[in-house]
Structures are given as C-alpha cells and as structure tokens.
C-alpha cells in the first residue's frame, strides 16, 4: 500500500492561458484504476460524511476497481445528478477528500495523499455521458404528465427538473437569460467547465421531456400566482444568489471596475473574449486587480490573465486578499492553477479606495496592510488593518469578487413568499416547501452562497417532496 496519488494530467500553464480550453484533462481508464486501487475500502468509511449529498463513495470506487463503470455511474447518480459537472467543480478538498481517512487529522483541507475522489467521480461521469448511460425513470402513474414549473436553470433548477421529469411530471423550466445553465453558464469559465459538458446535460433533460423557456422572468413576465393559474401544480424556485456585493469604498464606480459577475458574464455568457466576432466588449487592463479569495475571485483572475495574453498584453493580474492563502475559501486546485498561470496573490491587503483619470477610469488602488487576529465566526482568523500602512498600486481594471446576495426579482414582488434578513427564501428544512403552499425552493436562494453539489442536494429533496405532495393530493 501507500501508493502515490495519481496526478491528473493538465494542460501546461503557458499553453492554457492562451485560450479558454479545459485545463484539467481528467483521468484515463488506467489512471482511474490506479487511483481507485489506492482506496482503502474502509470498513467504516468516513468519506461519505464529507459529501453534502452523501454519495456512497466507497461503493462507487469499489465498482471502479471491478471495472463496473455502469454500476459506479448508477451509484453516484442515486445522489448526484451531474457527476461530470460536480467532478469538475466540487471543492472536494473541503468535503469528501477532507473526510477521507488518508487526510491528516486537523488539517484545514484534504491532504495530498487523500484519494482523488472528485477525479474518479469525473471519470465516471464522463464515462456515463460518453456511453449515454440512462438512469431509469420512475414514472408514477398518479402524477403522470401533471405540470410543474422550475424557476431558474442553474444547478438547483436543472437538478430538480431532472428528478421531477423522471418521476413522470411534465416539467417546464423558466430561465431569465437567453441560455440555460445559470451560474454554470455565466459564472464558471469554460476552462473549468467546458460548455459541451453543460450542453450535454441540458440536452439529456430535454430528451427526458423537460421544456426550457428562456428569456422569461417569473416575477416580471409572469407572476408566481399566474403560474398556478396556467395549470402548474407545483413550483420549484432555484433563483440563485445573483446580486453582486461591492466593497463600498470611494472610487468604486470608476470605469473599468467590475463586479466579478459582470466581468464573468461578459466573458463567459456573452463571449467577450471573442470580441469583435462577438459584440460584447470587456476592458482588458495592463494591470488588473481582483479583490477576493473565493472561487469566483480565482475564476475572474484566471479569465483576466487569459484576456491579457490573448490581447498581447504581458500577463499582470494580482489578487488582493485580506487574510492569507490558508484562509482563502477557494478550492486549493484553483489557487494552484492561478499561481501556475502567473497570477500574483497579495495577501493581508485591504483595499481602501480607488482613484482615476479625468475620463473617470480607474488608475490606482490604495490599500492597507493587515495582520491576522483571533478567529471570527467563520472560524478563520480575522484580518486587522494596520494603521498607517497605506500603499498604492497601479490598476487600470479591477474586479470585485467579494460575494453575492439573493436574487430579489421574484421575492420583491411576492410578499407572501417569506424571506430572512438576507433576502433568502425561508423553507421547511424537511420538505423544502416555502411559506406558499406548493412552492418549493433550493440552491443559493436558500441559505445563501453554497456549492453546486449543495444546491443539487436541496433540489433533490425538494423534488421528492413535490412528487410526494402531488401523489397525496391525487388527480
């Protein structure tokens, strides 16, 4: 035993920053088998306890060892609908891999030697897609073809739609943007989640009979009440956390200071990296600064440095973060990838203000140095600004990636839909039903920003409740 973890193949940094192709190539069958063989197949596995949806990890790795890929696919699919997506975007080092017995006790995230569960999941997910492995529907005659609506087509909405359709319901997804996918489309860049993977999963849902209505905003084009009048018997809300937070510091409205959402939407959804073939522009600076330490900050920085390279500008993108690298909430892999790609990380830095040119474009960012204090409510050590430590950096484009709040378009016009102080929809944690009967919710609109897999977990739970409640209600 004690075999070395199987490294996953990646495109060389110098090559990958010249475009938006996928960075991590994934395991070959041989590599997957070698990695799976490292699994101790513990008698009392603890890894699954780290998975937000409780995938039977020991079982699916065991099936890989036996080359029963179809079995492994069906094991994962019992809990997660989109393994090829989750295998790519799950922060495994904070979840299953951290729980893996091979991770050193007390470590803030998974040890190197922990089984690469996410890469194995991705291998199986991609195997399933390639072989068009279908998960059998469990169509229930009592609810057959009754109409349910899903609002939002992000991770939660897509997952709920699949579950509901397999239960036999007629599902219509309503999406506000012109393409389905939500954050998987506008937020996560193609070099982390290739669009053919996303399109494949969406295509599968269409095949299941799910109808997708884009350019349609529930709360604007049609109200929630009207959906019921149109014959929908239940509604799932996967509205997401779509409202960007800003720093609230002077100069933040100068030109070329973007929210990460705007920057990423311009590039990912609107393909601004293909300007002028695509018509949406984006500013590519010579000195780009990204503020934040989460996955979105990493995504934004990695997009920024790619845009610089693609525009023949020497790569100069710096991440400003208030704490240190250890406290960064981003996936470790993204931090590593960002550094490999030449992104500088300036830790213990708290922006104070921006200043700009006569034309109103940002030119400088002024910050304070910080030191770490006692842990705060998040368990991470609190950054304490050091008085008199101001310093100024050049910055001709900045991206603010400091979090997102609840999307309020629907809740603001639906007072009977109860929300908490953050604007998130409150639900019964058992059924995921909201304060309105027949309306369920899941994903980031419940409990704030989380991961793709957490959103899917909630969506699955809600779908189960919807199916049960419609069955009970009778025809």
């Amino acid at each position, binding site marked *: 035993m004690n075999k070395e973890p199987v490294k996953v193949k990646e495109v060389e940094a110098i090559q990958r920053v010249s475009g938006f192709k996928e960075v991590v190539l994934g395991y070959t069958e041989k590599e997957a088998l070698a990695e799976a063989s490292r699994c101790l197949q513990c008698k009392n596995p603890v890894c699954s306890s780290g998975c937000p949806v409780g995938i039977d990890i020991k079982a699916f790795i065991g099936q890989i060892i036996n080359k029963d890929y179809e079995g492994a696919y069906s094991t994962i699919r019992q809990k997660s609908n989109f393994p090829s997506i989750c295998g790519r975007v799950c922060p495994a080092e904070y979840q299953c891999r951290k729980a893996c017995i091979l991770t050193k006790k007390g470590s803030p995230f998974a040890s190197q030697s922990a089984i690469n569960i996410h890469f194995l999941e991705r291998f199986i997910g991609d195997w399933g897609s390639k072989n068009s492995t279908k998960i059998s529907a469990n169509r229930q005659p009592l609810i057959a073809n009754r109409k349910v609506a899903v609002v939002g087509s992000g991770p939660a909405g897509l997952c709920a739609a699949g579950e509901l359709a397999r239960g036999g319901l007629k599902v219509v997804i309503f999406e506000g943007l012109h393409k389905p996918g939500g954050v998987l489309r506008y937020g996560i860049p193609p070099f982390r989640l290739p669009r053919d993977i996303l399109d494949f999963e969406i295509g599968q849902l269409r095949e299941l009979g799910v109808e997708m209505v884009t*350019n349609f905003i529930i709360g604007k*084009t049609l109200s929630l009440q009207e959906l019921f009048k149109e014959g929908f018997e239940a509604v799932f809300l996967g509205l997401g956390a779509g409202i960007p937070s*800003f720093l609230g510091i002077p100069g933040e409205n100068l*030109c*070329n200071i973007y929210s990460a*959402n705007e920057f990423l939407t311009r590039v990912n959804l609107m393909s601004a990296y293909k300007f002028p073939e695509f018509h*949406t522009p984006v*500013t590519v600076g010579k000195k780009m600064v990204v503020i934040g330490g989460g996955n979105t900050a990493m995504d934004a920085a990695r997009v920024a440095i790619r845009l610089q390279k693609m525009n023949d500008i020497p790569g100069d993108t710096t991440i400003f973060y208030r704490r240190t690298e250890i406290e960064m909430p981003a996936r470790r892999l993204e931090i590593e990838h960002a550094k490999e790609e030449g992104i500088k990380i300036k830790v213990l830095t708290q922006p104070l203000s921006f200043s700009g040119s006569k034309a109103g474009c940002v030119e400088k960012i002024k910050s304070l140095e910080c030191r770490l204090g006692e842990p705060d409510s998040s368990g991470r050590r609190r950054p304490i600004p050091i008085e008199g430590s101001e310093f100024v950096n050049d910055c001709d484009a900045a991206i603010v990636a400091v979090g997102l709040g609840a*999307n309020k378009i629907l809740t603001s016009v639906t007072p009977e839909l109860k929300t908490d102080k953050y604007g998130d929809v409150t639900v019964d944690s058992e059924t995921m039903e909201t304060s309105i009967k027949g309306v369920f919710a899941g994903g980031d609109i419940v409990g704030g920003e989380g991961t793709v897999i957490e959103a899917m977990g909630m969506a699955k739970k809600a779908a189960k409740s919807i199916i049960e409640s419609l069955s009970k209600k009778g025809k």
Partner: protein
Amino acid sequence: MKIIETNTLLQALGVKITRLKILAPAIAKKASPGQFIALMVSENGERIPLTIVESDIEKGTITLIVQEIGLSTKLLGAMKEGESLYSLVGPLGHATEIKNYGKIIVIGGGVGIAEIYPVARGFKAAGNRVEAILGARTKDLLILEGELRKVSDDVKIATDDGSYGRKGFVTDILKEAFTQHPASSAEYGLVYAVGPIPMMKAVSSVTKGFGVKTLVSLNALMVDATGMCGGCRVTVGGKVKFTCVDGPEFDAQGVDWEELEKRNRVYEDKEKHICKLKNIK
C-alpha cells in the same frame, strides 16, 4: 420576437431613428409605462436595453424606438419585417407610478421623446393636465410630435437652431412655465424628463431651484439587465443603485450626472473599432 413592422421614423443629418413593432405577447400583456426590455439581435450580439414605447395586448406586440448609435442599434435598425430577434426579455425595471398630480410637465430631448411618450399617455389617462416640452437640435430631428400632441394638453418645442418652435433649450421653456406668475411652479406636481444627460442635468438644476419633484429615466449601460452584473450602477443621493432593478427612474436631484456620463462612455473606442471593422457607418 418576430419583427411585425419596421419603419424609419427619421433619417437626417446623420441621425437615423427606427420604430419597430415586435411580436411579444407575454411582454405586451405585462408592460407598463416606464418599463423596458433587453434584447439581442443575434446570438453573437450584445444585450441592449430599450424602453417599451407602446404595447398592444390584443395584437401581442410591443413597439420600440431606436436611434442608431453603435453596432447593436445599427444591426437592429437594419432588421427587416418577418425576421426575428435572437432574444427578448421583459418587461424590466419598475413601472412609473402613475397617479393624478393635477398638472405635470414631461420633457423629452432627442430620442428621449420616445421614452416620455408612454409616460405622458399614462399620466393623461390618470386625469393629469400634461404639458409636454420637446427638444431637438433642429426641426428635421424632432420625433413623435403628433403622438405627443394626442396625449398632452399642450406641446411646446425648442430647437437649438430655432428652425422650429423657439430657439433655445427645453429648460428655457421650463423656466418660463415656472415663472408665468409668482405661484406657477407650485402648480406642477411633477416634472418627468428623458433625454441626453446634459439635458436631464439642466432640467434637474432648474426644477431644484423651484422645488418641483423631478423624475428622470436613466440610460446606463447594462448586460443582463436583471440586477446580476451591477454594470448599470449609478449614484443617487449618495447611494449606489442598479438602474435595471432599482430604476430606471430616479429622483433627478440626487443623480451623480458626471459619473453616469463617464460610465456610459467607457466602451466608446471599442464601439468605433467594431463599427469600422464591420464596415458599418
């Protein structure tokens, strides 16, 4: 999303303004004065916001009026009847709060006249005395005079060169209205203005002096137009607001006009570049 009708409203002195009637039954049914849509001409296009000028529930259509400024508006202006937009979503933004103020003034400058038209109509229907002040550089660039006359009790016109109406600015007429007799300004419950930023700014400084409530509808740059990007953020009364979901109407007195003007110009060079590349004049 099909174009039912398109006609050139005016084409003169390098300005082209087009009126399009588009099939969008769901939007038509919900649209109220003051609201807008976001559209894409083609899959590789930009998302651009435009005011809903009219909506016809029976025919299921909405009317948009667009001045060709950049690539996307030029492509939209060049669309033919029977063709379809790639995407269209709405109605977006808050609707104008239509109520009876008694007497109001609506002010439109340039293509902004298209935006005050639905609002004037709404206020007229609510029983207001609606006085319209329309402004244009010159007579040939004035749009929708007839439409505004139908929904207003009085229409006054100002042109920069004096070729039509009075020579001067809309604010000259506004000042006169406020100073006809000592209590004139107090008779007006609202001034509603849409037009170029310098015009809206000038209107707000006049009305401030007289203490008359003034609303403006802002034309900030947007991407998703549903509150997700923050590209359209403006400072109003010292607070940051998103034009798309908090607006598009705001109290004119608090608007940071300089900031808005600068933010709206950020892609000017890229816009020129792409128009040149695509050989579109």
